[in-house]
């Protein structure tokens, strides 16, 4: 999945990676491309994971894990960081999802359950401000329920914000006309994919 996302990010892009599965995208940058990673806690030019023993507890990413800097990196405060995000300066953001609707609504911050501790972080700013929102997620929940729905039942992070969905079963593009399957995973056919998806899926007509 992470590799499929990485392939779709053009050379020279400024990229923000959400916490968890999205962080893995950085491991698959195709050769010859240079991407610049922004972490909303104040670093542009995030580098690789530090070697053991080299971690600095005050040089971390948005997931609060130790990182390093590339030559040409810079630090800044939170208001400047969200100037980048809200101001439309980040090209691509890769986020995880709890639910995605057929019109690109994203829910990824709260189940809305009464006893859940809601925690939103920067997700709402990212979906409002970044040019392209790519979602990376397991196609179904742990108990086998669809995550790609006609309508999200969880509280929204943003309405109509998702461009494409990368799952373990397929790559799906969110279009005005509906959800279009761009690529099927190995050993996955369209019918199987539709059975595991609540929202109706479409196939691109061959050119």
């Amino acid at each position: 999945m992470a590799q499929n996302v990485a392939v779709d990010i053009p050379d020279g892009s400024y990229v923000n990676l959400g916490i968890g599965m999205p962080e893995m995208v950085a491991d698959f940058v195709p050769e010859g491309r240079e991407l610049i990673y922004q972490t909303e806690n104040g670093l542009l030019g995030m580098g690789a994971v530090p070697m053991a023993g080299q971690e600095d507890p005050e040089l971390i990413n948005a997931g609060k894990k130790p990182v390093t800097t590339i030559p040409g990196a810079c630090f800044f405060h939170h208001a400047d960081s969200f100037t980048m995000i809200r101001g439309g300066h980040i090209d691509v953001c890769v986020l995880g999802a709890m639910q995605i609707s057929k019109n690109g609504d994203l829910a990824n911050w709260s189940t809305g359950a009464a006893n859940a501790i809601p925690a939103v972080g920067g997700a709402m700013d990212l979906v409002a401000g970044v040019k392209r929102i790519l979602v990376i997620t397991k196609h179904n929940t742990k108990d086998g329920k669809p995550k790609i729905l006609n309508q999200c039942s969880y509280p929204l992070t943003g309405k109509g914000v998702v461009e494409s969905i990368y799952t373990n079963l397929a790559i799906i593009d969110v279009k005005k006309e509906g959800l279009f399957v761009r690529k099927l995973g190995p050993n996955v056919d369209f019918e199987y994919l539709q059975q595991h998806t609540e929202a109706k899926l479409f196939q691109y007509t061959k050119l």
Partner: protein
Amino acid sequence: MINKTVKSLAEAVQDIHDGATIMISGFGEAGSPIELIHALIDQGAKDLTVVSNNTGSGNVGLAALIEQRRVKKMICSFPRTANSTVFPELYNAGEIELELVPQGTLAERIRAGGAGIPAFYTPASVNTPLAKGKECRVFDGIEYVLERGIKADFSLVKCELADRYGNLTYHATARNFGPIMCTAATTSIVQAKKVVEAGVIDPEIVVTPGIFVNHIIEVSNPAHESDLVAQKLTYPW
């Protein structure tokens, strides 16, 4: 002669009053002014409203302040983190209030508070429960929500270098909320890893101009929250 350095952590926090609104810098443990927070625990002020991105971890620092029932309300973007149990327990027991704010909105509200901007429009949270009850308005075909600037009575901030005027630099991603919180508080209280002579910090590289800072205390070997949590320590110890 202007000299904003004080002699002790206790002196730095002595004026904090019951019911105060306090901004506390940090994103996770990076930039969290643990020694100032512990001094505040010792000092005793209660019924506090705390503005901070997270709610601390383990039983030290901000989590310890909350555990001591000294915080009546948290304004933050991400109250649950690895090793954070104190806030979730009190929140589920109905013993602490939470105002959840998107991280960028939180940052902008703090900056606005410091910059004399009472309110601004932002696209973040439109069409979500966090915009509920707030004024929405369309500019150039896009919908925005009105958000208010936040000011605080005090801010507790961790920095790298400071001079007697209050000019500050920061270290790596420990910078995060520190510079904007210094602007938004009536009294900004800063712990610096090192206090240097005026003029040592190049005027081109000052991050927080001294005008935004009131009290400075040198804490040359600040604890890392993760170390204290790994040792399962509880403050007060």
